[in-house]
């Protein structure tokens, strides 16, 4: 038995009850004064030219790292994605087995968070701008590869078979039959990846890998809130501009033009794409030169620090069940908070448009704010622990989920909502039954995927999570305990792979329903096999 669709979106919000019940127990309120100062500083950010200069410089580095890491991950991901596609192997060699093996291999780099890649690379090759770029490119590349191969393998193969039986050689047939339908989805997805890369580059900075994140953490730690807000406002502006630009490009290039009233010249889109691609190359070279990224320097490995004899007994005596249980609890709490709160908050503010605008602003802050900074702020008024970590991660992911929900809601269910309103139902009920009920399944399916991202992200709130794998890992890093580090990274990888499998099953179960009607216009990315990863 399944509950009715409108209830589905509200189900995860039930987690609020235990959270609200536990919150008074962990709040100590010692630092409300600081929180007040922090909020007041939002209205009067520092305009000191020195501060602005260093913030702008940091922002430049962060944007540069994001751009280079993103480009690297796309190149890597497209190549590996084609190499791990069953259709490609079957068409070229007749057997799809190698695709399966490559896929399994790619699961390993994907399961390790970019922060861990960054910190490990930092130990291997030293302090270099290229470290952050590579740290983003590796896991993102593996992620893009999975999405590309999934997309390739779910495309209809009728055209391909027709071309093959007509005698076309395998590469040409693959390109002709699968290229055009794949393109819009890849464009839409890679735009989304650039947004992710900007967020990741900021986060890496928080852990000392350069750029604006570094400034944000240092200003927060020295409680220089006005300087902090100069950085935050600037980052917010850049992030919103980037989102607007990508949204526009997505609509222009990735949406089918057949519903458009204006006719577009044949081939114009292809010319634009090629021009954009060609324009990007010199830009990337320029950015790499400005950031002094030297690919050759990455090859100068310094070797690992001379490790003491590995003490596996000590590794085995770590409190593993507790560590894993806390990490899973943190993930589930953060995921259900984010998934449940987004529709609930939208319903609550529906009658007041002004509150809606405020809510969107808050979500934008949540998206841009690296979770470890939120966690540090929360520590002013809450005790460290799983719940504090979950709140920080939940706030960040609420910003991301909320925006996706809003975007999806814009393209779906307007007539139903209007009809319900006209028939006299209240604004909230009309929104819930008119728009959200149609979106329930794809939204929750995306939420299941997001849970698996949150599991990987849980390492970044290690310092306040206090008892999970993440905190143990950061401690092992600062003790240069290679054996513990290895065991913890492996545990993380295994847990993430397990989580990925579970979330895949949940997604399939949610999407495979007898009356699976696609709720929004075709071509929109959510339904493309869950392309929003």
């Amino acid at each position: 038995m399944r509950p009715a669709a409108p209830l589905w979106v509200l189900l995860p919000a039930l987690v609020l009850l235990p959270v609200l019940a536990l919150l008074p127990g962990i709040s100590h309120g010692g630092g409300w004064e600081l929180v007040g100062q922090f909020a007041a500083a939002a209205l009067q950010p520092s305009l000191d030219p020195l501060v602005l200069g260093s913030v702008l410089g940091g922002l430049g580095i962060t944007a540069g790292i994001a751009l280079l890491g993103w480009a690297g991950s796309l190149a890597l991901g497209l190549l590996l994605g084609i190499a791990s596609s069953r259709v490609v192997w079957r068409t070229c060699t007749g057997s799809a087995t190698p695709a399966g093996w490559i896929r399994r291999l790619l699961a390993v780099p994907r399961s390790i968070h970019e922060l861990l890649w960054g910190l490990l690379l930092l130990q291997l090759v030293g302090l270099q701008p290229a470290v952050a770029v590579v740290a983003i490119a590796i896991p993102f590349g593996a992620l893009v590869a999975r999405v590309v191969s999934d997309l390739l393998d779910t495309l209809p193969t009728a055209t391909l078979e027709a071309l093959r039986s007509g005698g076309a050689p395998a590469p040409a047939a693959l390109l002709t039959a699968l290229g055009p339908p794949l393109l819009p989805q890849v464009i839409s997805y890679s735009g989304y990846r650039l947004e992710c890369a900007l967020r990741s580059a900021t986060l890496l900075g928080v852990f000392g890998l350069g750029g604006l994140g570094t400034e944000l953490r240092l200003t927060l730690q020295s409680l220089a809130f006005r300087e902090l807000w100069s950085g935050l406002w600037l980052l917010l502006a850049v992030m919103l501009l980037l989102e607007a630009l990508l949204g526009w490009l997505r609509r222009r290039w990735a949406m089918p033009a057949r519903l458009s009233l204006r006719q577009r010249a044949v081939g114009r889109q292809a010319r634009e794409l090629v021009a954009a691609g060609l324009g990007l190359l010199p830009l990337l070279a320029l950015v790499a030169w400005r950031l002094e990224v030297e690919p050759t320097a990455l090859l100068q490995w310094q070797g690992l620090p001379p490790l003491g004899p590995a003490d596996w007994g000590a590794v085995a005596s770590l409190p593993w069940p507790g560590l894993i249980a806390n990490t899973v609890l943190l993930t589930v709490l953060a995921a259900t908070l984010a998934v449940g709160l987004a529709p609930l908050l939208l319903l609550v503010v529906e009658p007041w448009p002004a509150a809606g605008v405020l809510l969107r602003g808050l979500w934008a802050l949540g998206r841009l704010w690296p979770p470890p900074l939120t966690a540090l702020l929360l520590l002013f008024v809450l005790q460290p622990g799983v719940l504090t970590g979950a709140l920080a991660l939940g706030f960040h992911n609420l910003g991301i989920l909320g925006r996706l929900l809003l975007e999806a809601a814009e393209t779906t269910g307007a007539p139903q909502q209007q009809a319900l309103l006209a028939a006299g139902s209240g604004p909230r009920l009309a929104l819930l039954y008119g728009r959200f009920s149609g979106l329930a399944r794809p939204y929750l399916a995306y939420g299941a995927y997001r849970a698996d991202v949150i599991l990987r992200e849980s390492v970044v709130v290690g310092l306040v999570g206090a008892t999970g794998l993440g905190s143990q890992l950061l401690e092992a890093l600062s003790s240069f305990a290679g054996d513990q580090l290895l065991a913890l990274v492996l545990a993380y990888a295994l847990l993430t792979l397990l989580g990925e499998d579970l979330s895949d099953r949940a997604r399939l179960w949610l999407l495979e329903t007898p009356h699976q009607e696609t709720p929004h216009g075709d071509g929109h990315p959510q339904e493309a096999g869950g392309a929003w990863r």
Partner: protein
Amino acid sequence: MTVRERWTAALAGLAFALLPAVLTPLAPSLLPAAEAQQSPAKASTTQPVLRIGAIPDQNPEKLNRLYGLVANELSKQLGVRVSYVPVTDYTAAVGAFRTGNLDLVWFGGLTGVQASLQKPGAQMIAQRDIDAQFYSVFIANTRSGIKPIQNQKGLTALKGKRFTFGSESSTSGRLMPQYFLSQAGVKLGDFAGGAPGFSGSHDATIALVQSGAYDAGAVNEQVWKSSLRSGKANRSKVVQIWRTPSYPDYLWLGQPNLDQRFGKGFTAKLRAAIVGWRPSDPEQKQILELFGAQQFTTVKAGEYKKIEQVGRQIGKIR
């Protein structure tokens, strides 16, 4: 899509794309921030640069000011180009020393031992007069109800309180305080919330305890005293409750290959320069004041055995 929308998006794209290209030269934090050189006119790229660094134990503004001065002074005395590379993390400072990205680093006791174990042959150049016998102090918020402690056993009063260390790898802000706490029978899990906080730096610890976000914390005595003098720490809100026994702390650590790179006898010259700083010289006086010391002295490597022992006991050295 309207024309206006299109223009907005195009401008946004341009702005984002040009951002890294336009802004990077201003303050790239991975690159040398304060570069001082003997004579800019004849600076050649072949001339080696002495890259100095420091663990980020205090506010970055102060570090930038202090190490900018140090870079200038060393450059003037030694006749080589000296640049200060800011590092944002204790562990990263150790890593950067091991990988050879930094030539001379102001380390804490623990990070210094970690770095010299990881880089055999690393040379302990100098320490401050106060470092052979260094102290941490435990501080508490006046509203927390924690009273000054008479002896080490009294640390049990901190059980169940919100407590913060400085950085995870700090000697005076974490390692030794944790050692003295465990001697008194206080485990990390005994604090409120089941774990202590890690504020990141001594300044942050003082600010957080003063604000009430934490009931108590442990800081480096020298930073604590200078905060009291400058008025940043307000005695009506935060007070010292106990001073630890002494232990050796900070030191300048140099790469093993300095003589090969900068010429025979360079390490000895470097040591002589640092140890020779005196308050009679106005610039050197400023440096010594920011370091909170009268002068620098040479180091006896054996002193840091105790830190290594404690580090191994706590698990920070393996």
